[in-house]
C-alpha cells in the first residue's frame, strides 16, 4: 500500500502539484447477522481506494477513486487550481516515527474465516437461547473489522498502519408476565479477548430481569447509568463538544469554557488515541500525526479539545493526532478529507464499586441502556433520550424493572451533578459510532424523568 501511495505522489508532482499527500486505505468488514434467532446474512464489505490532497501554492484540492491512475493525479491538481488560495493552509505534517501501539492488531482476527465467524455468532445466539426458558427470541450481529492504511506526503512522511477489532451485540426478547428486552455489546481488538457466550448470557440476563416493569412517576431521580448508557450519552452529547471543529463553529457548549470548571472535581476525561487494546486506537491519524493521550477534562476543569491540522491551525494549536477520515462504515476511508474526531474517549474510574453506588441510593433508577440519544439543542447541550433497560432502586436495592422513561436534560448541568463514579470500566461502541467510549458507571443526581 505504501508503494501505491508513493507512486501516486510522484505522478501528482509531475501533474503540477507543489505539495501533495496520498492516503491509501483498505477495509474488510465481515458481518454475521442474526434475526429472529437465526443467522440470516453473512456479508463481506471490502473497500480499497486512494485519496490525494494536492496544493498548488496555497490552493488545495482533493480527489479520490477506488483505483489509482494518472487521471486521478491530474484531477486532484485541477481541483486545487480551480479554487482561490486558502491562506489558512498549513501544509502537510513532517515525517515522524510514531511508536507502535500495543494490542491493536491480531493476526488471528485478520485471518478469521467466514465459517469461524458464523460459528462465533452461533455461540452468542445459543448462549442467549439456553440461558432461561423465558428467552424467546434474539437478534444481533458479529462484526470483524480489518483496517489498513498508508500515508505518504511530499515532506517525506511515509507510514503504514493496521488494526483489527471484533464486536458482537445481541438484543434478546423474554416473555413472562408481558414482554421485555435486554441488550449487550462486547468488543475486543483480538480474537482471544472476545467471549461470544458472554454477549448472549448478559443480554438474556438483562431481558429476564426486565420482565414485569413498573411505571415510573415523573420527577427528579438519582440515576445510575451503566457503561453502555454512559457511552451512548457521551458519544452523542459530549463527543462533539470537545471536537475542535465544533468548538470553532461554536456549536459546542464548551466553546467559551476552556480553563473553567465544567464538571465535578471527580471527573477526568481523556481522548486516548494510542491506548493499548483500544478499539479505536491507531499508531497515527489519517494525516500521519502520531496519536496520543489528550486531556479534555482534568479534575472537573476543561483543559483541551481534539484537533486535526486544519482546525488546530485555526485555533493556533498543534494537531492532537485526531485528524481522521471516517464515514459511517467501519474503517478509515480514503474518500473524505481529514477532520477532527474523538478516538477512544476514556472516563477515569472512581473509587466506588457499582454495587456500592446502588446501595448508596435511596430512591433512583439504574439504566443499563438508553436509546436514540441526540443533542436536540446542541449549542446548549440539551439532549433527549429514552431508557431501554431500566430498573427501580428503593432503599439501596434494585427492586424490579422500570417501564420506559424519557429524559430531556442538559449535559453541562448533569456533569456538575455526578455523585459517584464506579470502577467497572468497559469499552463500548454505540450503534453506528466511529469511536469507542471507555467508561465506568456514573451516578447523576436530580435527573428529570418524564
Amino acid at each position, binding site marked *: 500500500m505504501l508503494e501505491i501511495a508513493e507512486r501516486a505522489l510522484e505522478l501528482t508532482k509531475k501533474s503540477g502539484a507543489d505539495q501533495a499527500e496520498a492516503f491509501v486505505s483498505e477495509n474488510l468488514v465481515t458481518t454475521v447477522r442474526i434475526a429472529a434467532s437465526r443467522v440470516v446474512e453473512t456479508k463481506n464489505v471490502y473497500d480499497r481506494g486512494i485519496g490525494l490532497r494536492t496544493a498548488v501554492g496555497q490552493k488545495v484540492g482533493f480527489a479520490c477513486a477506488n483505483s489509482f491512475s494518472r487521471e486521478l493525479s491530474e484531477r486532484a491538481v485541477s481541483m486545487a487550481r480551480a479554487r482561490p488560495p486558502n491562506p489558512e493552509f498549513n501544509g502537510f505534517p513532517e515525517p515522524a516515527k510514531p511508536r507502535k501501539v500495543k494490542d491493536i492488531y491480531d493476526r488471528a482476527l485478520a485471518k478469521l474465516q467466514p465459517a469461524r465467524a458464523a460459528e462465533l455468532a452461533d455461540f452468542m445466539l445459543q448462549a442467549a437461547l439456553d440461558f432461561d426458558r423465558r428467552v424467546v427470541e434474539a437478534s444481533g450481529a458479529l462484526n470483524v473489522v480489518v483496517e489498513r492504511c498508508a500515508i505518504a506526503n511530499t515532506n517525506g512522511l511515509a507510514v503504514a498502519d493496521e488494526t483489527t477489532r471484533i464486536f458482537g451485540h445481541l*438484543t434478546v426478547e423474554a416473555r413472562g408476565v408481558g414482554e421485555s428486552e435486554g441488550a449487550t455489546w462486547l468488543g475486543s481488538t483480538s480474537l482471544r479477548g472476545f467471549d461470544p457466550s458472554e454477549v448472549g448470557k448478559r443480554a438474556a440476563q438483562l431481558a429476564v430481569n426486565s420482565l414485569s416493569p413498573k411505571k415510573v412517576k415523573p420527577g427528579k431521580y438519582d440515576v445510575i447509568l451503566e457503561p453502555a448508557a454512559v457511552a451512548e450519552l457521551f458519544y452523542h452529547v459530549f463527543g462533539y463538544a470537545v471536537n475542535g471543529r465544533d468548538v470553532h463553529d461554536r456549536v459546542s457548549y464548551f466553546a467559551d469554557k476552556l480553563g473553567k470548571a465544567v464538571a465535578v472535581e471527580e471527573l477526568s476525561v481523556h481522548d486516548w488515541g494510542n491506548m493499548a487494546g483500544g478499539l479505536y486506537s491507531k499508531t497515527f491519524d489519517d494525516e500521519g500525526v502520531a496519536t496520543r493521550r489528550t486531556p479534555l477534562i482534568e479534575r472537573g476543569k476543561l483543559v483541551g479539545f481534539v484537533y486535526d491540522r486544519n482546525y488546530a491551525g485555526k485555533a493556533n494549536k498543534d494537531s492532537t493526532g485526531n485528524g481522521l477520515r471516517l464515514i*459511517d462504515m467501519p474503517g478509515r476511508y480514503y474518500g473524505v478529507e481529514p477532520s477532527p474526531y474523538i478516538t477512544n474517549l476514556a472516563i477515569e474510574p472512581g473509587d466506588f464499586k457499582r454495587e456500592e453506588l446502588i446501595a448508596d441510593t435511596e430512591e433512583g433508577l439504574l439504566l443499563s441502556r438508553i436509546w436514540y440519544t441526540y443533542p436536540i439543542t446542541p449549542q446548549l447541550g440539551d439532549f433527549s433520550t429514552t431508557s431501554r433497560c431500566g430498573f427501580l432502586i428503593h432503599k439501596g436495592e434494585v427492586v424490579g424493572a422500570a417501564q420506559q422513561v424519557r429524559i430531556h436534560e442538559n449535559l453541562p448541568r448533569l456533569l456538575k451533578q455526578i455523585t459517584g463514579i464506579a470502577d467497572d470500566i468497559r469499552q463500548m461502541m454505540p450503534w453506528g459510532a466511529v469511536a469507542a467510549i471507555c467508561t465506568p458507571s456514573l451516578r447523576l443526581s436530580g435527573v428529570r424523568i418524564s
Partner: protein
Amino acid sequence: MKLGAAYADVRTENSRNETILVKDGKVEKVTSELQQGMGIRVLFGTWGFASTIELVKPAVDRGVKTAVSMAKAVRHRAGGKMAEAEVAEARTHAGGKIDPFEVDLSEKIDLCLEADRRARVDKHVKRTSATIAAQKLQKLFLSSEGARIQSDRVITYAGVFALAKKGAVTEYFEDLAGGTGGFEIVRRFDMSARAEDVGRRAAALASAKAMPKCKLPVVMDQDFVALLTHEIIGHPSEADRVLGREAAWAGRAWWAGMVGRRIGSKLLNAVDDPRVEGALGYYEYDDEGVPARRKQLIHEGRLLEHMHSRETAAEFKVKPNGNMRAQSFKYLPLIRMSNTFIEPGEHKLEELFDVKEGVYLKGAKIPSIDSRRYNFQISAKEAFLIRRGELVGPFRDASIMGIAPDFFSSIDAVGCDFEMRPIPNCGKGDPMQTLHVGNGGPHLRSVAIVAGVG
C-alpha cells in the same frame, strides 16, 4: 447459480461525486470522487454477500466465490423465501435539465462564496457556510431470474448555514434544497437570497426568548412535518422492523400486527412513493429489481400497508412493493423508505392558525425517538406562539414531545400546501448505510407537549 444458489443477483455501479464547501468566507473543500464496483448477493437459505471494486473477470469470479462461501459458512441454512416479482428488463434515466458536472467549477465556488458572504447579515452572525454537492450514478442490475435493469440518475443539492451569538445565546439556522435532478435545483434555490434569510433568522433567534413549556395545539410547517413523517411513519412502516428483525439496531414498530386498524385521525393519510419526480428518494426499480410503486401506508387513519423486500413480502403474503435499497454496491440492500409523506388535506393556513392559543413550529432540527417509534421528541428551528390567529415570536429552543397514537389521533387540521423536503442522511443497517430519502407533507395541526430548554 452453477454453485448451487437458489437465487443470485449482481449490482454494478459507477459513480461520480463532487462537493464544494465554503465556510466563513474561505473555500474549505473542493472534492471529486470516482467509484466503481459490483455487489454480489446469493441465496442458499441464508444470504451471502461480497463486493469487488475491480470489474474484470478474475476479480468478479473471486467475488462470487466469496459471496458463496459467506452464505455456506452458516450451518443451519433455512428460510430466505422470496415472493414472486416481475422479472423486469428496463432502462431508466433521471438526469434533470442541467448537468451539474458541466457547470464550471469556478462558477459553483463563486456561488458558494457569495451565499456565504450574504449570510453574514450583521455582526452577530459569527459562522457561515454554503455548500453545493452533486452525484451521477449509473447502475446495472442483473438477476438469476433474468432481470436486467440499467438506470442512471443525477442528484444535486445545495445548503446554507448561519450561526449567530448575542450575549450568552448562540443559535443557528440552515436551509437545504436537493433532489433527483440537475443544477436547475441550485438555481431554483437561489442560494444568495436563501443565505441572507438564513442569516437574518439565526440573528433573530439569538435575540429571541426561550420557548416556555406548555401543552397546546401545535401547527407544524412542511419542513417539520417532513422529519416527523420520516421518524414516526416512515421508519415504523419498514416490514423488517414490524417483524422484529431490526430489534438489535433500528428498533421495532409499535403498530406491529395492526394492519387494517385505526391508528389515528381520519384526516391522516400517508404514502411512500419512490416515483415522485424530482424528489431525493426517486427511483423506478429497487435494488432487488422490483418495480417501484406508490404505497398507501395509512388511509383515513387506518394502517394499510408496509414497505417490503421480497423476503418480508413472502412472510406477509403480499406482493413485494419495491423498497429494498443499498447505499452502494458495497452493501447488501435492506428495507428503506423512498419518499414518504403525509398527503395534503383541504385546510388553508389561516384555518390552521384559527385557535385561541397554540404554538407554530417551523423547520425541524433533531429527533429522539424510542425503539418502537412510539414516544418521540423533535426540536424545531424556530417557534411562534399563536394567539387568536396571530403569530408572536420567534421563540428559540422549542421541541415537541408526544406519544405517536395520541398525536395521530389529535390531528384535527391538514393543510393543502404540500411540500417535499430532502433528507440526505437517513441511517440504518449494520454496517451502517446512509441513504438519500425524500419526506414531506403539508402544514398539520395536532396536540403535543411543547418543551423548552432542558
